[in-house]
């Protein structure tokens, strides 16, 4: 992914910036440990006392993986302005931070919930629904952890040499593991503050640098205006998914899916007050899309104008891209490497290094949040059900063991993926699940909305709906070659498509099965008021 940087002569700057960054992360992990208490609530939710700076930035950093700084400009480079409309999913997600997150926070505080399964099983009752919610959450979390660790290995390979892939993946996982293990949510969230700031500043800086290097906004847009018309119009649904129908459903459903995934859900439990979540929602909805629309996404457009593919009518494979650009998602790094050091000399080198570390920060913040959430989900939704009398200390240690085992497993898969045919196939399968992760997470939305706002669903309805949605997502994976499935996936976001089945089944089954006790529903309503 970042092999392009290997050719860059940036001297020692990336090494210095990277080492400083990792040391700060370790320092924050240790401070988080020293400030923490030895309770389950403290380890998983930082004592439910997180303030505005930490809450807003940890939600943003968890929302975006390395895709933010690499993938978005790559998509704009490949598909043009139509891909920029993806930024409009961020205000939807921002609204959901408050409209879903605040209810989740209130119930969590009133009833000592830690995982999403706690709330869903707490309302509907029974362990089956807890397990189904946990499985959907794990299907989101696991591929994300593995893919982010792989991204860390690739970055190390890029910075330190071809043979540093394994060492880099191990070293970066080890740093993440240490601060997640010792400090729990407090350390993860504090490191997310740094990583979130790097992500935002990296996104803005990248845009400013490219526009300035092309002669300012006037020159930049003059060059962009000369692009192939297809880059500046919406696409036809018959040809590509970059059409208004798919983009609209993506903005509606993928945003919500990312907000109800386990790591975000636990961040809502951890927020101190409604006011904190309200302000975090506004920051998320306003600042984040602005950084993308006025920042890093413009890098893709500028890249297309300055370094177009050899033949625009052909797919953007390595042979059809300009020399030095292996894949479309390398365009941001390619442009910055070309322009910044020339424009700003030594300062440009430092800025390129910071942006590269921002890319790694985006991956690490996603990996650490998901690792931590996985520990919470497995402890609360699996271990606690087998051993309900476990002490808080035991529960915290089970979470830590899950985090260690998962990191080692992820590293093994990443290692095998690089060194064996079996591992390569396994990693490819995981990558497919990575693309389905949001669609799985999306299936938690109907139950969450029912608990927070409607309260007419039943346990059987919620279970049937979630299982149906999950099966529909899996079916699209196995029927990926089918023409009908391909057409559907071009006009509707997969999560939204499966969600429609989920909701229909949820409503139908709820009509014919018994509702929770009215007293129980009233108690939830009181806790939410």
């Amino acid at each position, binding site marked *: 992914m970042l092999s392009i940087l290997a050719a860059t002569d940036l001297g020692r700057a990336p090494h210095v910036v990277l080492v400083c960054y990792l040391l700060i992360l370790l320092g924050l992990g240790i401070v988080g440990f020293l400030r923490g208490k030895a309770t389950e609530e403290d380890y998983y939710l930082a004592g439910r006392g997180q303030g505005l700076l930490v809450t807003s930035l940890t939600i943003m950093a968890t929302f975006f993986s390395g895709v933010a700084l690499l993938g978005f400009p790559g998509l704009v480079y490949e598909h043009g302005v139509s891909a920029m409309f993806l930024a409009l999913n961020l205000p939807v997600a921002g609204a959901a931070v408050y409209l879903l997150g605040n209810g989740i926070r209130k119930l969590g505080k009133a009833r000592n919930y830690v995982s999403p399964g706690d709330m869903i099983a707490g309302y509907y009752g029974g362990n089956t629904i807890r397990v189904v919610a946990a499985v959907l959450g794990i299907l989101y979390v696991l591929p994300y952890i593995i893919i982010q660790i792989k991204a860390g290995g690739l970055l190390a390979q890029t910075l330190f040499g071809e043979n540093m892939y394994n060492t880099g993946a191990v070293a970066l996982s080890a740093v993440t593991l240490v601060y997640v293990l010792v400090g729990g949510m407090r350390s993860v969230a504090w490191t997310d503050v740094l990583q979130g700031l790097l992500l935002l500043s990296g996104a803005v800086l990248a845009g400013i640098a490219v526009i300035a290097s092309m002669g300012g906004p006037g020159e930049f847009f003059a060059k962009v205006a000369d692009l192939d018309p297809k880059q500046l119009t919406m696409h036809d649904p018959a040809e590509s998914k970059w059409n*208004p129908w798919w983009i609209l459903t993506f*903005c509606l459903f993928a945003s919500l899916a990312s907000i109800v995934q386990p790591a975000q859900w636990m961040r809502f439990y951890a927020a101190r007050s409604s006011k904190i979540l309200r302000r975090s929602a506004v920051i998320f909805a*306003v600042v984040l899309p602005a950084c993308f629309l*006025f920042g890093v996404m413009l890098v893709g*457009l500028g890249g297309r104008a300055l370094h177009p593919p050899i033949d625009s009518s052909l797919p953007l494979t390595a042979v059809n891209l300009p020399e030095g650009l292996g894949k479309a998602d390398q365009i941001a790094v390619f442009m910055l490497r070309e322009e910044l050091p020339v424009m700003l000399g030594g300062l440009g080198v430092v800025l390129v290094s910071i942006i590269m570390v921002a890319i790694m920060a985006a991956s690490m913040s996603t990996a650490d949040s998901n690792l931590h959430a996985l520990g919470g989900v497995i402890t609360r939704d699996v271990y606690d059900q087998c051993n309900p009398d476990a002490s808080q200390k035991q529960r915290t240690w089970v979470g830590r063991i899950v985090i260690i085992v998962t990191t080692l497993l992820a590293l093994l898969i990443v290692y095998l993926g690089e060194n064996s045919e079996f591992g390569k196939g396994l990693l490819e399968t995981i990558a497919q699940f990575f693309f389905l992760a949001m669609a799985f997470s999306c299936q938690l939305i109907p139950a969450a909305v029912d608990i927070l706002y409607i309260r007419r669903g039943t346990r059987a309805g919620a279970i049937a709906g979630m299982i149906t949605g999950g099966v529909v997502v899996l079916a699209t994976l196995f029927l990926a070659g089918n023409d009908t499935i391909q057409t559907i996936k071009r006009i509707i976001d997969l999560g939204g498509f499966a969600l429609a089945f989920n909701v229909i089944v949820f409503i139908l089954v709820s009509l014919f099965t018994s509702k929770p006790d009215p007293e129980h529903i009233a108690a939830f309503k009181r806790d939410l008021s």
Partner: protein
Amino acid sequence: MSEKRSRKPAAIILTVIFLFALVMGAGPGSLLIAPPGSEPPLWFGMPALYLWAVLWFLVEAAVIMIAACTLWGKEKD
């Protein structure tokens, strides 16, 4: 309860504006500006489709800020 009821019309209006902005921006509304196969228009020297995305982002952001200051701001902690 009566306060909640009095906020309902404002909540409905803001929700409708937000959804309208989403449909006009990310959704089929964008076809009004630059449909597939058309000659892309420029506004102020910039691609009209880009400004269209920015415009509807600003509407969405404004709706959320108004909701946060008026409707959500009244939520008790």
